[in-house]
């Protein structure tokens, strides 16, 4: 069996890594647990991608088409890596496809198993994600936006007052996620913009601790959301959500005014952060790769080598390394591909 470069995970980071490796002439196998490629954006029905608001399906579709056009790329969908050994090759992976198992020899492995959305049922506030139908999370709204119809789940009506609550599940010692999830400020601003485009009469608020718009996202997403689409940013996070007269009463402190605030909303969107996905945790364990306390894979030589792990020949990309936006996913994918192809040549 030919020694290949194996990418575990067919999301934006994994595909980017596979394409980059294929472009360098390496034979690549992509192993994807779903029956389709595309990762979170496809799995969670994202409407569009941040920051350019392009359709997730189109962008990912282009990427997938590019990937599958390479003759030296094999894609194994509905497949999981269930075992790994270093007996015969640098790596020998047991892959379960449906009920059939096979072995894939890999010169090096790129873990691209991504993240999972924080479960708002775990948050320490009283947002009532599972109690109130009109409290939803970013990805729930994405799915609605993809359908082109934002409604109140409770009654199907078009919401006129919508707010986002930032930092749900992030930056919270009590939950154990002290880190910032990086993308939620941008994603919330993007979704807020999309709501305004869909329902121009709606009033959309974003309650935040501080807006974390790094780099160009500031003027790509945040400023247009505020200046062109009239999204209202309010500094001060929501502490609790209560039902009131068929609506939701959000309560918190308006920190700039130094006064308590209580506002009625039709729809509350929790800007949930990122956590390490089960796949990331499992692959890390399987390959013996060191994880940080949050379950994400730890880059061994940060900051200037962001993709190498504690195990030589194993690389991690994208959100498997921690909260990451798409641009970071693509960048880390390319870097891991280059390093993995180098390993391949070294073996040859």
């Amino acid at each position, binding site marked *: 069996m030919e020694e290949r470069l194996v990418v575990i995970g067919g999301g934006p980071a994994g595909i980017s890594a596979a394409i980059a490796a294929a472009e360098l002439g390496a034979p690549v196998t992509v192993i994807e647990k779903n029956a389709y490629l595309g990762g979170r954006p496809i799995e969670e029905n994202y409407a569009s991608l941040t920051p350019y608001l392009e359709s997730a399906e189109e962008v990912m579709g282009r990427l997938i088409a590019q990937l599958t056009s390479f003759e030296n790329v094999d894609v194994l969908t509905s497949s999981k890596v269930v075992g790994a050994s270093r007996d015969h090759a640098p790596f020998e992976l047991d892959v379960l496809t449906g009920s059939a198992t096979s072995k894939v020899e890999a010169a090096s492995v790129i873990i691209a198993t991504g993240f999972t959305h924080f479960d708002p049922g775990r948050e320490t506030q009283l947002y009532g994600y599972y109690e109130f139908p009109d409290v939803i999370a970013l990805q729930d709204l994405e799915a609605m936006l993809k359908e082109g119809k934002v409604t109140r789940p409770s009654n199907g009506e078009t919401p006129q007052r919508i707010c986002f609550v930032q930092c749900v599940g992030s930056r919270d010692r009590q939950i154990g996620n002290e880190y910032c999830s990086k993308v939620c400020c941008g994603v919330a601003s993007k979704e807020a913009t999309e709501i305004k485009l869909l329902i121009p009469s709606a009033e959309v608020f974003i309650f935040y601790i501080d807006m974390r718009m790094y780099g160009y996202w500031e003027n790509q997403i945040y400023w247009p959301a505020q*200046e062109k689409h*009239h999204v*209202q*940013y*309010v500094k001060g996070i929501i502490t609790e959500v209560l039902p009131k007269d068929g609506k939701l*009463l959000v309560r918190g402190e308006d920190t*700039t005014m130094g*006064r308590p605030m*209580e506002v009625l909303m039709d729809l509350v969107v929790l800007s949930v952060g990122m956590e390490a996905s089960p796949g990331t945790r499992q692959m890390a364990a399987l390959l013996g790769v060191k994880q940080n306390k949050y379950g994400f894979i730890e880059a061994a030589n940060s900051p200037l080598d962001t993709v190498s792990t504690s195990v030589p020949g194993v690389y991690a990309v994208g959100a498997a390394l921690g909260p990451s936006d798409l641009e970071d996913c693509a960048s880390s994918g390319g870097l891991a591909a280059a390093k993995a192809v180098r390993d391949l040549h070294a073996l040859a």
Partner: protein
Amino acid sequence: MPVGGNKQAAGVTELAEAIVTSPLSGREWDVSGGSSRMLHSRVLTDYSASGFAKIAALEGGNSLEYCFGCGKCVPVCPVDLVSEYGPRKIHRAVQTGLDLFKSDELWKCTTCGNCLRVCPKEVNMIEVMPAVREVAMVEGTIPDELQQIMEKTFRYGNALGENPRRRPAWTKGAGVDVRVLASDPSPVDVLFYVEDYWSFHPRGQQAAQAFARIMTSLNVDFAILGAEEKTLGDSQRLAGEKGLFEALMEEVIDVLAKYQFNRIVTPDPHGFNALKKVYPKYGHTFEALHYSQLLAPLLEQIDFQGSLEATVTFHDPCYLGRHNGEYEAPRKIIEAIPGVKLLEMGRCRENSYCCGGGGGGMWLDGFNANHLSERLSERRVREAAATGADILAVACPYEVSRFEDAAKSTGNEGLRVMDIAEMVDIAMRGEDWRS
């Protein structure tokens, strides 16, 4: 005895135990002790973008919404130092339900421009405020005293409500001949646009006379419009009366078209701003100079008969400095006067404090007395006095009377307020400034 005005009874009630109830949730908030000073609803419930939408619909009104709350504007806002103000606070207040169109907050801004200087989002209160004020004026929510100024300006062509025929009255005491174009319409180099306060205010008239003497001694070929002059009305525009400004402009243009001149020189930075920045937008372009810009290059020719012997501090007029970038000309003049030592205040040049007269503030002292802990001019005078200077030099006709009043009310009678033209004139004629 509270009579008139909108002065509120002092709202500070500190109760050992106090509870306020949310109108929305019915939840009770414990505000006992020091924080019980806001016993009316503490809870903010009125959040909306609609306030911005109404403002953004106005020409120049859209940028208020751009504020992202960085707060840079507040410490440089001259009004905030004597009240709760600043664009960030206005932005937040509008977001939490303030109807700016009907609010007293609308009239506090002096359009000094210091917020725009530092604003990363370019929230332009110099456009926002006049646009909103214009609507408020149409809706009839304009402070009494401002309404009267507008009526006087419309009726008489000057904000003081003086008989327009008395405009050239100041020339009688100048001691030099001042040509009035109506009676001698031959071409002239400098059209001296005297503006309201130099024409009519007794202290302004003294400065006008001083300036006429200086120009005469420098052999500047100049003339005035006399009774035909009307105010350029820039402050009326910024106070919200764009229509009045435009009406005045048409009349001004008609009068100017009658005469030949090379340049217009005015002592009023507000009029200067109108000629330099606003008139061209309507297609009327003139070579406009602030009087300090005319004098500065000619100073070497002045044969000073005496020496001023004084320490002087200079107040940059907002509309000369920040709005039009001229910081050097008045300083050059001051420093050229023999015996003068210039002491700068901490806030000067780009960051100069405002006298409170711009954007209609000149005519809102009564209104503002109910809103500000002290006048801006009073604060500025104390800054000037703190330099230890003998003279507070000014280069805007609004300021002599504003600062003289403030010097008295703050107990700084020892600080003399003088126009730079008066200072040059005194030294030129060898007089003693103390007499």
